[in-house]
């Protein structure tokens, strides 16, 4: 049996445990199972998975459900000043937080995710979903308090946990969402977040992926932007056994504006793969992305950034920058920025660099008595500091500097 066949069998086995459950999510799970049966798992020949192998999933993560109850207390979670909500191994807490202007509800068959399950991983996510969460920000609500969701995926043996969050921002609203992943053990987190940003609404989005090194993470983030909406997304992550983030943003109506700032570190033997696609489907939208990556030891960092300008999307301004530091000749960085443009009235560009720390700068620091380790850390922080400084939330910026600094 090939790897892809065996993964499919394991995923279907994992889904079986949920088949008998009769609750509001049944029809969603059935759809997920259908997708799993019909869509093949990617292999090395699949263009979008060229640099990421699924071999690490062969220990059976997909077949088993993560069950260990979290011992994580809210005291361990850094306080970013928002209302906290902990989702443990895919299970929602008994009570949901209260924020003015925000309505929480559990996902049910009445309001299943609007999008279909288009990949085997989103199929798997749907088929093994315990709970799902709906977040609805009311029209015109300017929500001051941030929502800080902590996803904890924990297990002692290879297993998986699925989470799914749908966020809807109605017109003219403003909202801050902090998605924070913190798990331990050989647990695979299968995470799907789908966000709809209504006309003239503003979303500030943080995605902090700080699970421990032995975890696995496969996620899909889908953002739909309507007229004149603004999205600022800050994504900070360290590599683990297998980290794969698929991000897709649709500019559906004119005037939408997107900013993404991201840092990814792949040290030791970790792996991180970001696959980002911006669909400019409407005129006069702007997108601006900066991704900075560092790979050291036997780490592997992959970046694939696609900008797709649809035929009618005139007046588009889309920019993408991917800068990388490679610290060892056993490490690897693969970068693939792509432009697909079907309109002439656009301003589009991308730039990629891969290099090393400047030996003159290192020498300068060494000559002033800074030891080699410390000097490298300083230069490493200097490399990503530009992005950390751009974080609007100071508590997160401070936390991120320490947390990322540990791995430099």
């Amino acid at each position, binding site marked *: 049996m090939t790897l892809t066949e065996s993964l499919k069998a394991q995923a279907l086995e994992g889904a079986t445990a949920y088949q008998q459950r009769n609750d509001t999510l049944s029809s969603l799970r059935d759809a997920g199972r259908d997708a799993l049966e019909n869509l093949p798992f990617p292999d090395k020949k699949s263009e979008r998975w060229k640099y990421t192998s699924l071999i690490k999933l062969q220990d059976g993560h997909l077949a088993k459900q993560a069950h260990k109850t979290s011992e994580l207390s809210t005291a361990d979670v850094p306080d970013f000043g928002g209302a906290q909500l902990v989702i443990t191994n895919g299970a929602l807490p008994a009570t949901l937080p209260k924020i003015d202007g925000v309505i929480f509800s559990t996902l049910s068959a009445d309001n299943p995710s609007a999008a279909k399950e288009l990949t085997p991983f989103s199929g798997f996510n749907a088929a093994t979903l315990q709970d799902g969460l709906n977040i609805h920000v009311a029209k015109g609500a300017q929500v001051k308090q941030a929502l800080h969701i902590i996803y904890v995926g924990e297990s002692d043996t290879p297993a998986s946990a699925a989470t799914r969050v749908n966020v809807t921002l109605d017109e003219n609203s403003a909202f801050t969402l902090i998605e924070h992943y913190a798990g331990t053990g050989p647990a695979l987190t299968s995470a799907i977040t789908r966000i709809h940003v209504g006309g003239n609404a503003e979303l500030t989005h943080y995605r902090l992926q700080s699970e421990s090194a032995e975890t696995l993470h496969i996620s899909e983030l889908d953002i739909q932007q309507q007229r004149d909406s603004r999205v600022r997304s800050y994504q900070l992550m360290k590599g683990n056994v297998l980290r794969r983030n698929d991000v897709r943003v649709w500019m559906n109506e004119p005037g939408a504006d997107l900013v993404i700032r991201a840092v990814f570190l792949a040290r030791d033997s970790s792996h991180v793969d970001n696959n980002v696609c911006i669909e400019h489907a409407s005129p006069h939208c702007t997108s601006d992305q900066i991704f900075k990556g560092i790979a050291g030891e036997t780490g592997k960092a992959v970046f694939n950034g696609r900008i797709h300008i649809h*035929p009618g999307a005139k007046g588009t301004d889309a920019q993408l920058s991917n800068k990388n530091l490679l610290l060892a000749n056993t490490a*690897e960085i*693969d970068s693939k*920025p792509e432009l697909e443009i079907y309109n002439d009235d656009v301003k589009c560009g991308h730039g*990629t660099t*891969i290099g*090393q720390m400047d030996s003159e700068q290192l020498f300068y620091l060494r000559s002033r008595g800074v030891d080699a380790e410390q000097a490298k850390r300083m230069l490493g922080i200097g490399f990503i500091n530009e992005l950390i400084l751009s974080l609007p939330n100071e508590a997160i910026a401070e936390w991120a500097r320490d947390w990322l600094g540990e791995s430099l």
Partner: protein
Amino acid sequence: MSNQAELDKLVRSEYSAGFTTSVESDTLAPGLSEDVIRFISNKKNEPQWMLDWRLQAYEKWQTMTSPSWAHIHHPPIDFNEVSYYSAPRSMADKPKSLDEIDPELLRTYEKLGIPLHEQEMLAGVAVDAVFDSVSVATTFRGKLKEAGVIFCSISEAVHEYPELIKKYIGSVVPQGDNYYAALNSAVFSDGSFVYIPKGVRCPMELSTYFRINEAKTGQFERTLIIADEGSHVSYLEGCTAPMRDENQLHAAVVELVAMPGANIKYSTVQNWYPGDENGKGGIYNFVTKRGVCHDNAKISWTQVETGSAITWKYPSVILRGDNSIGEFYSVALTRNMQQADTGTKMIHLGKNTKSTIISKGISAGRSQNAYRGLVRISPRAENARNFTQCDSLLLGDQCGAHTFPYIESRNPTATLEHEATTSKVSDDQLFLCRQRGIETEKAVSMIVNGFCKEVFKELPMEFAVEAGKLLEVSLEGSVG
């Protein structure tokens, strides 16, 4: 081979005993089989080892499937509808004079300023023997011989220099490298062979155009250029004038070997029939071009691609030796319904290797123009350096310009830069030109020429002038 593949092969093979060869016939009936390959080899009077090599390639080809990753769309090609051998037309079949040639073609020649007798040659008019015997080609041949340069057709080389061919053919592009390279290896019709001896600087630009038996290389062209230690050669392929050509599928292979300290410059102008404005007809051009650089060697590819309905072409350099250099300069222009998926691969294996990629894509009409490139730094390529710049220019709102770069680094001392931009001819620039009395079409062509300047300056002088004119002609009717 797996059982299934063997079975497939058996099913596909034809009834061999029923195969009859008419010695008189010049063109082989369409279809591909082992017998066809034997026939081609036999026609060329090839030694057994060459035939074995072809058959090996054919066996590999049968197990392969045509690639589908490129950003091009075309109906599946039926390889059994292609005729794999046609001898050069006899004088009797050729058009007698320019009066019999498509006037559209002649107009283009005139615009490009091509002398009359050259027009005849390009259009395939039966050139009379007198002209031929005093042709420039013959004079050049003598001069080359003096320098010790071997420049002949590959069929000739198989007979005269078998040890060189045996050693180098397939050494850069192996038989099973890709689908079209395998097909070419099995059925290649002819092509050029060049050998530059140690330390020799080739006294002139070599061009396919000067080779005396260049009557018709056919659709499966194979070129092999070997530059021995410290030698230097510049090779021109193609011609700025459109070639009259009735073959729809072209699958060529070009192999370059640059021994230590050698320098090869390979320039191409491709201007085959691109099909009409509705995408009817036109050449499908699937080319594999690759060079190997040993220590301190340099290979430079320059291409101007304006023709063909489909261009699928990635001239590559394997930087095997330390301090070797690879360069790629490209202008690709597509219009009407043309599709181009072209770019390069730079594989850095040696220390201190350098590569430069400059790619300019221009799309007009309803065409699709894609750059696809790979830069790979291996773990032992210390201090490797790459600079890539891909610019696209869009003329019109129905065309597409795409960039698919693959950048892979495994050495921390390497420095890689990649940059891509997309723009259109700005109204401000046009306004400035119009204001000074330059008509729109002329203005656009000036701007496009400026956009391509970086690449044109890499072309040999006379070629650069012609390439500029060629763009002008190609852009006609694309504006306004």
